[in-house]
């Protein structure tokens, strides 16, 4: 079984990839969710934080925010060939009826010789759970 010390854990799911990511707060759980997602596609320890992209998102609820946040990883991969190494300076705040997320993605462009694995097509709401009582946990199923 995968190490929980990574901050995330995968579960058996008939067709797709399902994981839970954990943290002391929501920001950490979101960060670990991004690392869980990346683990399906490449080994982030083999990517150097050579460059960074600012991330600014807003959503009507936390689930939509989580979908948008993880989609950012896929968007940067497809459009810029950007491989995520780290999620830095992540903050989530609620302003009125909106949830705002700010962060900085560190990583590098896809280089020859770096092995990439399977493809993730999209982030779904399927079986999505976000728990914020005490320690935070998010559960995500992604379409592979």
């Amino acid at each position, binding site marked *: 079984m995968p190490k929980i010390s990574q901050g995330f854990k995968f579960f058996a799911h008939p067709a797709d990839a399902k994981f839970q990511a954990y943290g002391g707060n929501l920001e950490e759980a979101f960060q670990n969710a991004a690392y869980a997602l990346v683990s399906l596609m490449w080994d982030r320890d083999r990517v150097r934080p050579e460059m960074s992209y600012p991330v600014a998102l807003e959503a009507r609820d936390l689930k939509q925010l989580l979908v948008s946040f993880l989609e950012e990883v896929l968007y940067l991969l497809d459009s810029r060939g950007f491989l995520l190494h780290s999620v830095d300076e992540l903050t989530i705040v609620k302003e009125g009826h909106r949830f705002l997320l700010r962060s900085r993605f560190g990583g590098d462009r896809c280089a020859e010789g770096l092995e*990439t*694995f399977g493809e993730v097509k999209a982030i779904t709401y399927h079986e999505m759970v976000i728990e914020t009582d005490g320690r935070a946990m998010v559960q995500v199923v992604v379409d592979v």
Partner: protein
Amino acid sequence: MDLKKIGPYTYEIAQHGDMKVPAVIYSSQNLLEGVRRDMTLKQARNVACLPGIQRKAYVMPDAHQGYGFPIGGVAAFDLEDGIISPGGVGYDINCGVRLLRTEYSAEDVKPKLRQLLAAICREVPAGVGKAGVIRLSKRILQDVCAKGAEWAVENGYGTKTDLERTEEYGRMSSADPAVLSPRAIERGIPQLGTLGAGNHFLEIQKVDEIYDPETARIFGLQAKGQIVVMIHCGSRGLGHQVASDYIRAMENKVGTGGLPDRELVNAPIRSALGQEYYKAMSAAVNFAFANRQMIVHWVREVFARVLGSAEGMDQVYDVCHNVAKFERHAIHGQEKKVCIHRKGATRSFGMGRAEIPEVYRDKGQPVIIPGSMGTASYILLGTEAAEQLSFGSTAHGAGRVMSRHEARRRFRGEQVKQDLAGKGIELQATSWRGVSEEASQAYKDVDEVVRVSHEVGIGRLVARVVPVGVIKG
């Protein structure tokens, strides 16, 4: 879930609760076990509750749980009071399959197989994060999305005959690239002409069995051992982004209140947002058609270079697996235009339909059903009966039964490659881990899926093909 057997391979969930129509499942005892284990039946019931649904919600033999709609789900909606739903099409819009015939036999190809595969790998970028060889401007990408495979042919990729032998003739005229988000366009620009990864593949196959020689001949498949090429890919990140964009737009504008599942989010077909999604989805459909068209062209170039000729490498057909479109169907004895959603299902029209190219119109449409890595794939014939049974639809493939993690735990990529080699199948892949995740044991038995399709009569067996060379992204 209360499931009533109403035929040898037909089961029904009777209309109850909020269901507006019954749901019908085409399955066998074996396949049904899997369907009962996951959420397929619940999802089929949910679809049957959606506004404006016509006749019945249908579930194909290869069904498994999806997001909102089941994979292998077919539903039609009334144009006045019905809905359109990105979840009814799927994230990989126009994921589809194209089949090319050749004049070569397995013996002709065998000595040059490795060379062929290596050359195709060089021409057709595959794998995660691999960009295409051509870099497009935004304007050209919009042109691609407006014209689909026609754009590719105009630019020297393939022939007019290829267009005739493509669903929608390679272009949905409803496409409007102007509605695509900047993000969809940005994701599409580097990816035109790429295979992608995951379950997508390019295979050199040989005809292994012919069940219906007369139809096979019309499809250009003459004899056992004949080499064909199958290409399975979709609209890449552009299509994924369109799905995500409109799920979000519909959530914000229409809302998800009252829906049993957030992924069933939808908009009335008549609404501005429903229409806009249809235009964007059509643009993604066209991107995928152009993508497969370019790949076919490169495959022909490689065959010409390595084997001396690409003569007779005609396209058999190209089918969509994930799409919504407007079609005419009989609803309670009256023919009317409806909005069909096929999610993980293949159109399977019988003889006479105007949508089928002339060359096949007296017979029916070729239906191409890919297996998983290293297993057989099938060519079926669309039937008239399917129009009554499933709005002219059948299965689309094998469908996963095991998560990637589980597959990786059980199989090693190197071993999978060796096992394939033992069966005489050469594999070229970008990642060992990807290979283990796509091991054929992680998928349903495609043989049983097509047998059910044949027995029910929604797609009849024409030929079986088996891989000799596999390229995995």
